[in-house]
């Protein structure tokens, strides 16, 4: 009953937002781009690079509106929402271009950016009523939070069962040892004890954090705020953990079970739902950034985990073709680009294979979106290209390599890089058959080394026109925005 009611409330919320969007869209058209990606998939770098390229007129041959000169001006609008922080574009660009250039720190809170594109509109309405302007709204957020979205459709009991079942399997089992031991020590029906709850939450959080390490690189780690609490750290909303409970059993009043369940429900309704309905329910375009290469580094388990995490998360979004009724019931994302990020970590001759692996990972999500009528594309991209390509001849064979400065501490074949010397890397051959990525036959055959950001002039006259090199960022832009600038 209550789930039905909340469903109706949420739909009403959506519809109200939809009507508001429609009304404001008439005079100041806005394109909401949902940059979707789990943590460390490169959302912040993608947004920064995209904005940088648009502001500085980067080399974007496939972005037709720009190359045909239909774009007059691009600028950053003052932040429109009072209660959402602005995306710290300047700091991120500074990090990428400064003296000690490095990739931006991982994002710990939500932020938003509004970009305005003034273009030569051809439509009568666009020219006169809308002033030939298109606002592009992009938000950045910790990717961990995205993992919470599937929780909206799960009860505490279901979530507990799923989490426990997952922790019974390797590689999670050994990481969850401490938490599982503690779990056995208390009885769900016992009276609630705050200290025990605190301990359980702490151990559970530690288990989740250990699953993220580079060598395991698992993806399904809800609740996301446990890993990236934002300003909720320490609050009761984040103080709960799964319990080994019988699905048939009702929680007794005052029991540990009841307390945990209440907190879980509060977490979903106060943290997850507002996050989703305020920012993701009404997207126009969606780009799904997937860090395929890190998952491949970690092995088949990580790839499989990534696949099911993305399927779950993307199942929450409203995707598909829009009709006249969309104006009333809220718009859907009608174009979805699945992008394998960090494509600069391998030679371009392997990009086809990378795209095939990505297509396998997002297979289910893609089918669902296609069935709903959305336009789909799959691309290997690098928003900021940190490497150059090279060929190395060794022992009679020619290796297609990439050259750049590996990040300090990266290792390959027994060699540790110092973050200063340039190296040419052959990361191994991606398989012809993408299924090799999940059947475990690739273990140890691939190693993608991370590189430092490329050197572009940050000061002086050259800096004004300096843009980041990229791979297929123009195609991405054309797919996401191009048709709205016609």
């Amino acid at each position: 009953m209550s789930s039905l009611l909340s469903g109706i409330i949420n739909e009403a919320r959506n519809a109200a937002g939809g009507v508001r969007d429609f009304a404001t869209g008439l005079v100041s058209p806005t394109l909401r781009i949902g940059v979707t990606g789990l943590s460390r998939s490169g959302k912040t770098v993608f947004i920064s690079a995209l904005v940088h390229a648009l502001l500085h007129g980067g080399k974007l041959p496939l972005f037709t509106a720009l190359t045909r000169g239909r774009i007059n001006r691009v600028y950053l609008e003052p932040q429109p929402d009072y209660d959402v922080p602005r995306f710290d574009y300047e700091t991120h660009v500074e990090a990428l271009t400064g003296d000690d250039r490095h990739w931006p720190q991982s994002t710990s809170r939500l932020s938003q950016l509004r970009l305005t594109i003034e273009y030569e509109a051809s439509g009568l309405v666009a020219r006169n009523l809308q002033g030939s302007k298109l606002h592009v709204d992009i938000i950045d957020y910790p990717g961990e939070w995205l993992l919470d979205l599937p929780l909206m459709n799960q009860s505490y009991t279901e979530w507990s069962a799923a989490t426990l079942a997952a922790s019974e399997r390797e590689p999670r089992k050994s990481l969850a040892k401490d938490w599982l031991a503690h779990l056995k020590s208390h009885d769900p029906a016992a009276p609630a004890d705050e200290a025990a709850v605190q301990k359980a939450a702490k151990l559970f959080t530690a288990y989740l954090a250990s699953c993220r390490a580079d060598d395991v690189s698992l993806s399904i780690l809800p609740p996301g705020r446990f890993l990236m609490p934002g300003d909720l750290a320490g609050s009761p909303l984040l103080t709960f953990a799964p319990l080994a409970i019988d699905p048939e059993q009702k929680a007794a009043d005052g029991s540990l079970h009841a307390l945990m369940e209440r907190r879980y429900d509060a977490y979903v309704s106060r943290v997850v739902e507002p996050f989703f309905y305020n920012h993701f329910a009404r997207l126009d375009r969606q780009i799904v950034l997937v860090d395929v290469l890190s998952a491949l580094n970690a092995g088949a388990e990580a790839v499989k985990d990534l696949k099911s995490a993305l399927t779950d998360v993307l199942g929450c979004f409203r995707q598909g073709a829009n009709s006249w009724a969309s104006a009333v019931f809220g718009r859907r994302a009608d174009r979805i680009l699945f992008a394998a990020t960090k494509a600069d970590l391998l030679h371009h001759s392997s990009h086809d294979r990378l795209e095939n692996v990505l297509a396998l990972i997002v297979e289910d999500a893609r089918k669902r979106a296609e069935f709903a009528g959305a336009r789909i594309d799959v691309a290997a991209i690098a928003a900021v290209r940190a490497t150059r390509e090279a060929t190395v001849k060794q022992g009679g064979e020619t290796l297609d390599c990439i050259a750049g400065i590996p990040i300090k501490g990266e290792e390959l074949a027994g060699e540790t890089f110092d973050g200063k010397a340039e190296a040419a890397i052959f990361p191994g051959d991606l398989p012809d058959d993408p299924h090799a990525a999940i059947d475990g036959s690739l273990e140890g055959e691939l190693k993608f080394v991370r590189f430092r950001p490329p050197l572009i002039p940050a000061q002086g006259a050259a800096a004004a026109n300096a843009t980041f090199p990229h791979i297929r960022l123009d195609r991405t832009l054309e797919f996401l925005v191009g048709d709205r600038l016609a």
Partner: protein
Amino acid sequence: MSHDPRKPKAFRLSQDEPEQAASRKEEPQETPRPRAKTKTASKARSPRALPAPEIEFDEDSGDQPLVPAVARDHTMQKRFKWGAILVSAALGLASMWAGLAATRLIEDLFARNEVLGWIGSGLLGLVLLAALAIIVREIFGLMRLKKLGTTQADAARAISADDARAAEATLSDLRAIYSGRADMRWGMAQLKDHTKAIMDPADRIRLAERDLMVPLDDEASRIIARTARRVSVITAVAPAALDIALVGAQNLTMLRELATLYGGRPGTLGTMKLARMVAGHLAVTGGLALSDSVISHLIGKGLIGRLSARFGEGAVNGIMTARIGLAAMDLCRPLPFLTQDRPGLSDFMREVVKFGDGAAAEDKPEK
């Protein structure tokens, strides 16, 4: 399919001058290598069953939309087989006769006076030289025309199969066709600018179309519109006996101009061949073109036809000319229409039915 895994490796580059060291190893970026189609097994490997050294990948298209190559009529050549034999035999006889006659003439000249004989020989040499030059030029013209067709087929393949080799072949053809032309210098520079970027083969072709074809398409549309307008005026005012010849000449000129514009530069034979291809193309696509806003044509024709029978005929001829022009455009354009809209018959309707003051005035500045 079995694959041949190669271990990840790192090659440290010189510490002192990372920039230079890398640029030495960097592969020449001007011509992006086609994607690896063959794999060679390395020597320093542990013994194991190796896959065949050459793997031919089938050109299975992904889920990219297929771009249809331009329809061509293949029935024409077969029908003319006997005719070709007849013509070539007759030509052979004629050339033998001409050779004999020329030899006799020279002999006669020598018999009469040696000086006359030498002059005659000189003239005959000039005749032969000029004939040879014309033949060579015609052959080159035909070859260029053919190249436009093969480039188009390559481009269609590159797009539909996302085939890197076909894309590379297309681009090098385009470079060969347009590199010497002053009006294409800007487009070629743009294209060259983009060769370094990493992009998909299909995108490369789309980019080439945008950079190179757009100005040509505009010019081609102008040529078609101008000719269509002129043909309708000629039909309306020229004496009845002459107008067929005049309209035919106008059409041939248009074909030649279009082919030259797109890089074909055909001679007389080339133009004839193109005319035949256009006729075949129209025969194949005729039904398609008929449905293209046929109603508006009928209405337009009816109105003008009611005003004057000659003007009505003029409009019909103009429309026909525009259609021939569009068919020629399809055939001569080295790339299929991908990112650009294919001009339709309706784009030229206004030009055709706009007679009188406008036609004469607008005609001049474009020439």
